[in-house]
Each structure stands twice: as C-alpha cells, then as structure tokens.
C-alpha cells in the first residue's frame, strides 16, 4: 500500500480509537517482558491480607490503631509536616460506628468508613486535592449528560407530533419503501417462524 493511502486513512476520526487501542495493546504486551517488581518501601503500607480479620480485630481490615478523639492512628504519608492533624481521622469513629464495633467483629469495612478511617484520611486529607478533581470529573460528565438529555435526547417538546409526522412522511412519501416493507414482511414472518421452531 502506498504510504499516502495509509496517511489518508489516519485522517478519518472513526479509525483513530482503533489505532490508539492497537498501539496501546502493543505497548501493554511489551510490558510483559519488562522486569517488574514491587518496591517494598511504599507509603501507607497495609498488613498482609486477612491478617487483621484472623486476629479478630473488630474493625478489620482497616484498623490502624489510635483512640477516638485522643490518640492519632499510625499512618505513613509522604509529607507528614504538611498535615497537622495527621492520623486523627484514622483514629476516629462516629458513636454509631463505635456501637456497631462493640457488637460484632465482622463489620469493619462499614465501620471504618463512616466517616473516618484510613481511606477517608487519604481521600479527604493527605490527598484531598485528588478527590476534588475526581468529583469534579464526575460533576462535569453529569453536567454534560444531563444537559444533553434535558435539552435534546429526552426533550419531550420535540417529541410526539413532530417525530410522528416525520415517520409518516418518511413512509407515505416513498411508495417504494412501502412496497419493500410489504415484501419483506412476508419474508420476515417466514423466517421468524422457522427460527421459532
């Protein structure tokens, strides 16, 4: 193929996602031969899987120590000096959560995120700016979607009469279409019957 023809194909928007996907896939598969290993020196390290629940902690798997409103939990962020009340959120439990933790050891997930807990500390405090962005992304896409549906795709004002007329015009204007419809009708019924059996 001549290179010009190839380049012309690249100018069609429809081909671009596919080309992008293809190049991304190639790079991903190259990743399989790259030597990879997890660096054990990480931020916000968590205990081994199931360790806390096996020990029977009431708020497993999110127990990071600390006492409610008095002692901060243990937490290991990048810049501890930028966060003045570090660990307090991790150590905090709402009264309701405290009550639930006293009755059963199996509700740790719910308890430690209501509100407070480690993930909340990261989401709202040490990396709160990320969450602002994430929720802004959410908000923006909903603005786009709801604007489109309120003003266009779901807009009842241009519904009913106009669309019906369009349909009618489309059918009545073209006798050819009508004839085809009739012809195909029979064919389709026959096929449908065959398929049902």
């Amino acid at each position, binding site marked *: 193929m001549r290179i010009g023809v190839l380049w012309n194909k690249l100018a069609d928007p429809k081909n671009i996602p596919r080309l992008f996907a293809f190049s991304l896939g190639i790079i991903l598969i190259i990743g399989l031969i790259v030597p990879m290993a997890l660096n054990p020196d990480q931020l916000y390290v968590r205990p081994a899987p199931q360790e806390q629940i096996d020990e029977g902690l009431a708020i497993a798997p999110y127990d990071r120590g600390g006492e409610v409103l008095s002692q901060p939990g243990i937490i290991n962020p990048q810049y501890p000096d930028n966060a003045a009340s570090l660990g307090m959120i991790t150590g905090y439990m709402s009264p309701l959560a405290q009550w639930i933790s006293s009755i059963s050891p199996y509700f740790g997930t719910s308890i430690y995120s209501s509100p407070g807990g480690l993930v909340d500390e990261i989401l709202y405090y040490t990396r709160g700016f990320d969450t602002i962005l994430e929720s802004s992304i959410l908000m923006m896409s909903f603005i786009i979607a709801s*604007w489109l549906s309120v003003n266009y795709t779901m807009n009842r004002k241009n519904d009913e009469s106009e669309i019906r007329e369009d349909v009618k015009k489309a059918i009545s204007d073209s006798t050819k279409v009508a004839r085809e419809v009739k012809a195909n009708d029979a064919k389709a019924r026959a096929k449908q019957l065959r398929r049902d059996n």
Partner: protein
Amino acid sequence: MDFVTLGGNLLGTIPLGDIVLYLTPFNLFLFAVLLGFTLLIALSKPETQIEATMHTLNNTEVKVGPKEFKQRRFLSIICGLASAGAMITGDLFNFTLFMALVGILNIGIVSAVKQTSVLNSAFNYGLIAMMCSLPLFGGASIILAATGTLSLAVLSQMPASPMVVFGAVLMLIGILGESGVAPFFASKAEMFRTAGSPFIVIIHLSSLFIIVRAVEILLLVLW
C-alpha cells in the same frame, strides 16, 4: 533531575497534604497564560460562522444559541482552570487526574453542537479519553509501585529503572492520545469545525500546554 535545571529557580510551593504544587518561572509562565486566556474566554462572545450555501447564492450563518452558550462557556472556564492547575501540580497522579478532567471537558465543550461530524469526532475522542484511563492511571501506579512515591520532588531525585521507563512510556501514550497529537490527530481536529471560537480555543490550548508540561514531568521522572 530537579526542578531548577528544567524550569529555573523554585519560586515557591503550595502544600496541600501529600500533594505539593510548586512554581518555577516556566510553570508560572504557562499558568499565567492559561489564566489569561480563561479570563478572555469568560469575557468574550462567540463569533458567527458564515458559510456559503450549496446551490444558491445565500450564506448560512452558524450561531451559538443562548442556552448552548452558557453551558459551553461554563465548561470552557472550568477547562481553563483545570489545565492551569495541571501546569503547577507537583504530583504524578494529580497530573493524570487533571488530564482526565481536561479530556472530559473537551468533549463537553463540543457536545452541545448540531453538526453530526463534530459529534462523531467528539464521540471518538471520548472513546480514546476513556481508554486513556488505563495508560494514565496505570502508568502512574506502575511508577508508584517501582519507586514507592508519587511526588515529583522525590521522583526527580530517583534513578530510572526499566519499570519506571515502562510506566513513563505508558503515560506518554496516554498523554498523546488524550491531547490528540501525532498519529491520533484526526479525532480531535474534527472537533474544531464548529462555531464558538472562544470555547474551542481552550481545547487546543489545554492539550498543547499539557504536552509541554508532560515533557517536563517525564524528564523529571526519567532523569
């Protein structure tokens, strides 16, 4: 590699927990330009696009309706602010998030128009933007796994391992797709064939500046 060799002397930082925004002359220049353009966008009214009509001697006017105008102006201002934020952020994941925000806003700015060709390219660009979440977030988290940090200040002091290079390559392809350059230009370029010049300029502006910034970030990470 540190900030100083790339962008000039460090003028200051804005600490927000783990995410530290920083300012060098280079970042400040980009930031100021983006804010200036955002201000202009907030002030200006869209143009009327005049085209010749087929088979007659008349002209067709393509205008931006009042409802559409409000929506698009809002989205463009947010887009300007988001890309301005991307210019000064000092955190890898934060940067990818800014990019994702810019991507979705770019689609939103043209989503209200009537031309199907524009919508078509917006849709295709949207598909790319969705796929980009894998290389962008994935690349950032591979770098996180390899080095144990996301802060650019720390990353810039670390030597690059093959894994970091792979993460950076992933991020690079994500950035290329999201900002629509190189072989992926078509989907984004078609989006500009619509009226509303003050709004579509921010699409172009944000993607160009993000490439500029991305190169700085990749240099920081890799060397």
